[in-house]
């Protein structure tokens, strides 16, 4: 009767097994340090321009929209703290993670998927390498390291965007924007703003690798794996951000 539950439960179990192995390999040799740096370059440096752009524009847009609402209460001065809290707690981490999910979860899934269907993963095993150690673990480490950094950069550029709007359109001076924007932040907000991208990084890397490694059915299968990786990682980003937010609100 519950047969329809079998495939998703099995997939989830496979996912947990893959995740466990990937994490365990962090502490085991051989370490493929070169692969970690190549992936950091690909995921981190490669995503930098678009992350900067998105960060800046999210600040600009938020400044613009918020200022209009705040004007009704004569509270344009509050624009700094509002942009700062929204970006650092929620919008920065989620936007960057969705972007990296779109860019890299798909990239990872299609790369690993193509390797799977052309027997390169089997070849790797036959030639004495654990594909999880060689392919999954470096991607996991690289993403976990770069996504928080990308988020910090996006947050900062978002604040600059908010300041530009506040200054040019609503005549708010430098210290009027930055001092309250800085002061409103608590330790809790900053920790939350870093725990989230770290968790999202784990989701993006592992979901991308998971769907890549279980690709079957030729090039069509690679396309399917890529789509699934993006959709599933995006969904999990929203679920996880809700729960992390809930934990931190209650703290």
């Amino acid at each position, binding site marked *: 009767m519950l047969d329809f539950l079998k495939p998703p439960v099995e997939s989830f179990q496979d996912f947990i097994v893959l995740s466990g192995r990937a994490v365990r390999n962090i502490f085991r040799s051989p370490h493929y340090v070169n692969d970690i740096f190549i992936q950091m370059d690909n995921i981190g440096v490669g995503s930098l321009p678009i992350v900067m752009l998105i960060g800046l524009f999210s600040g600009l847009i938020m400044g613009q929209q918020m200022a209009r609402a705040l004007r009704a209460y004569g509270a344009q001065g509050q624009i700094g703290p509002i942009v700062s809290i929204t970006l650092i707690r929620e919008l920065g981490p989620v936007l960057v993670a969705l972007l990296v999910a779109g860019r890299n979860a798909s990239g990872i899934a299609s790369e690993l998927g193509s390797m799977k269907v052309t027997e390169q993963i089997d070849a790797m*095993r036959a030639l004495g390498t654990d594909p999880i150690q060689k392919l999954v673990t470096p991607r996991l480490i690289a993403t976990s390291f770069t996504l928080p950094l990308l988020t910090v950069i996006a947050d900062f550029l978002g604040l600059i965007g908010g300041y530009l709007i506040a200054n040019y359109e609503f005549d708010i001076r430098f210290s009027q924007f930055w001092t309250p924007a800085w002061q409103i932040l608590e330790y809790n907000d900053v920790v939350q703003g870093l725990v989230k991208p770290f968790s999202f990084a784990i989701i993006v890397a592992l979901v991308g690798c998971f769907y890549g490694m279980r690709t079957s059915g030729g090039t069509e299968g690679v396309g399917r794996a890529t789509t699934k990786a993006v959709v599933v990682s995006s969904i999990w980003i929203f679920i996880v951000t809700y729960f992390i937010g809930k934990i931190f609100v209650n703290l």
Partner: protein
Amino acid sequence: MSGESAVLRFDDVSLYFGDTPALVHVSFEMGAGETRVVLGASGSGKTMLLNTALGLVKPDSGRIYLFGQDISGLKESDLFDIRSKVGVLFQEGGLFDSMTIGENVAYPLLNQRALYKDRRQPANGNVEERVREALRFVELEQTLDKVPSELSGGMRRRVGIARAVVTEPPLVLYDSPTAGLDPITANTIIALILKERDSRNTATIMVTHRYQDGHLMANFRYNPNSGQIEAAPRNGGDSRVKTKFFVMNGGRLVFAGTQSELRASQDPYVRKFVK
């Protein structure tokens, strides 16, 4: 021949994917320097035979002995050492397209821990020299710095052979080495397989759907003096005696025997592979 001295022994091995049989009660054994030619239609379990022999896929029941060691219950990490004694050519070559040809051929030398003296130093000599030697063997030394996408299908297959034999393994598995190639390139590939087999006395399993490939394996040999492929002597040369044919159908080994037995078979399925 006892199970211990056999290079590879299958003992009642079965494997299913859901309800689909991939291998059904397969048993055979082969000794050092012997050749097996595996014929069969697509999906008859030929590739799975090779994958289970390498431990890439675990059988549902039965035992597989590789160089006398039971590999059916081994963990992946314990399999790496024994796999270093087996060379394998995958169907499409299985080359890593993110690496150059040189890096591809060097890969087993640099990654198979069983070949290492210590953690940093491959055991047998200079890696670059051995890579060049393996590429020279398949006559592709000039492609060292190219990437696989720059090579033709036949050349990729030859690089795959170089990578399979660079560690000088005593057993080499070839999965459809001639599939999708023109007859001239296909014969070049078979000539290379003969050359590898006869110059190092390597045990060889070749999966194919071309009877002609098997015919060449059984009746021709590489002459190291002339560097040419020549017909094996009529009165039962080495390769003739040591080459056996398998025919697979639906995961079952429906025929095992010499070429003359194969030609004499009355089984309609087996007869389809004799031309």
